[in-house]
């Protein structure tokens, strides 16, 4: 498969009063054409920073790139000037944000907001623009689009606003859509509608999607591949089925076990992960999951685990999976 986006050893830090926060610490992944890649992880693991860095929406300073490349169709986005980025943003790569309540301009009509991007990138008459706006609202199944284009965001419900956000992102038929927690602020019935809509549009417009979420149910529903992030690093990545059925990294395993399934007994306790993720002011020398891992080894504390390939598409970073590691059973923490 042809890759539309490749991220190579990307490192992003933030300068703060207390020192440097290493938000993203060397990640590698790619996104194929028409593929949906989900980035999963807890808050603070760097998933949104990664997404914003692709669009170069991070405030700089305090953020700065420490290294790496973001290749979009073979071109490194980090070398682009702001002018060149503006031609890509909204045109080739679009983004849907988490909070539909705050990401629309409350003082602008919905129709104008939808075509704002299109007007920037292509020449349009006012008539054409309105027609296009109505067409887009129809595409995302907003009822009565002729009436709705003239309304303001406050006249829309949360689900409808998120549809508008999607219409806004789709208007230039981008090649890549970055959806940062697109349904977190919505109710489940509305979430179902939105996810369904995104899938349909993906088929129709042949887009690739990067889906950022912490809801594993949504991931199971939407994604082809999964990238699991923890403390600014990718700990495991692979095809959706492989990750769910055969997770290799202890963090992925524990994360999957911590959600109650609809058929589990109520008497067994949930498998919580004790503790909290490490502070990235002083990132740990070894494996970031060391403190919370119940299978940690002595080596984990001091040495960063290498990446192990389990198959062509599946790899994880854990010393336990290292080909040289002794095969042992049991789940106890072993520190000799």
């Amino acid at each position, binding site marked *: 498969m042809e890759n539309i986006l490749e991220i190579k050893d990307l490192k992003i830090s933030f300068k703060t009063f207390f020192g440097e926060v290493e938000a993203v610490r060397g990640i590698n992944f790619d996104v194929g054409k028409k593929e949906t890649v989900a980035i999963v992880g807890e808050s603070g693991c760097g998933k949104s920073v990664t997404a914003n860095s692709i669009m170069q929406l991070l405030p700089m300073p305090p953020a700065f790139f420490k290294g790496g490349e973001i290749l979009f169709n073979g071109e490194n986005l980090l070398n682009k000037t702001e002018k060149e980025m503006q031609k890509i943003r909204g045109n080739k790569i679009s983004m849907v944000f988490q909070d539909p309540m705050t990401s629309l301009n409350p003082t602008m009509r919905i129709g104008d907001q939808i075509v704002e991007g299109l007007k920037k990138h292509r020449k349009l008459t006012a008539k054409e623009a309105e027609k296009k706006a109505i067409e887009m609202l129809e595409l995302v199944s907003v009822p009565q689009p002729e009436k709705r284009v003239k309304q303001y965001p406050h006249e829309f419900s949360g689900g409808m606003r998120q549809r508008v956000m999607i219409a806004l992102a789709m208007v230039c038929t981008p090649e890549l859509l970055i959806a940062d927690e697109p349904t977190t602020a919505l*109710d489940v019935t509305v979430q179902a509608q939105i996810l369904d809509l995104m899938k349909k549009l993906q088929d129709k417009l042949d887009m690739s999607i990067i889906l950022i979420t912490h809801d*594993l149910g949504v991931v199971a529903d939407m994604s082809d591949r999964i990238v699991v992030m923890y403390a600014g690093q990718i700990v495991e990545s692979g095809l959706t089925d492989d990750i769910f059925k055969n997770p290799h990294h202890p963090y992925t395993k524990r994360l999957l076990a911590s*959600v109650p399934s609809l058929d589990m007994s109520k008497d067994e306790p949930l498998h919580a992960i004790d503790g909290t993720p490490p502070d990235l002011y002083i990132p740990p020398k070894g494996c970031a999951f060391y403190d919370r891992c119940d299978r940690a080894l002595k080596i984990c504390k001091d040495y960063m685990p290498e990446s192990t390939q389990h198959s062509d598409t599946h790899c994880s970073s854990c010393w336990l999976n290292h080909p040289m590691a002794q095969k042992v059973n049991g789940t106890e923490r072993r520190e000799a």
Partner: protein
Amino acid sequence: MGKPLISARNIKKYFHVGEGQLKAVDGISFDIYEGETLGLVGESGCGKSTAGRTIMRLYEPTEGELIFNGKNIYELPRKEMEEVRKNFQMIFQDPYACLNPRMTVEDIIGEPLDIHKTYKTKEERRERIIELLELVGLGEEHAMRFPHEFSGGQRQRIGIARALALNPKFIICDEPISALDVSIQAQVVNLLKELQNQLGLTYLFIAHDLSMVRYISDRVGVMYLGHIMELGESEELYQNPIHPYTRALLSAIPIPNPEIQRGRHRIMLEGDVPSPINPKEGCRFVDRCAYATDKCRQITPKLEEIKEKRFVACHRAKEFI
């Protein structure tokens, strides 16, 4: 099952707004038995939080009764209400907003003790605070710190310790985990379950995370626009939902298992939740329901027991069993 600890009877809470009356809670009735957890689920704006707050009498109810220990607490004068309130506590959604940033943890947890003067000496107060901290998995060393020094999960533990300070019988958990990360959610839910076993607490658990509610609750009530649509034992209700709304709601939960999720049939609901301002007579769900008849438009269905321990508010419920 034992006897009901509290009985809600036809509780209503209306708010006056510019356009008329906003019927946030419009006549809900249920019992909560001692030692059980009743889950309350529904989409945003369905009135589940208002229901919780009205039960606590944080909002004065528009109508209705809440029987606790044989007394209707809505009729109690202020002084007596204060006494009764010791038994009712609340855990809030946002662990960042519900703790006073200028108070130490010791004072936050000690505040209910101060108000109800449950201690004689300073040492006694401190002992109780440390006992509470240990109960929720924190320690003595945390007592002198301020809320900003804690993570979300730890703050929620402080909120729980505060709720437990007066040995309450009944705790309303209003979305206690929705602001937390998945791995931390499990910690807090496990803690709530442990405390329930240890102290014999009764919970009203309000949430929109349906799989978590199923896991923690013995019985579940489904709310839609101020009405309870269905109420039943959680296992039963999730396996065999009867009300068309419950069915649609449950089918919309994404299941974290790609094989099952891909093969599932979703019931898509068209449109949005209608406005709760001046609602029309008739079933609240009628405009989005695939089974609606003329009767549904004219008469509001009552919540009736249609089989053992299962209450459904739908005219056609019998056909769906």
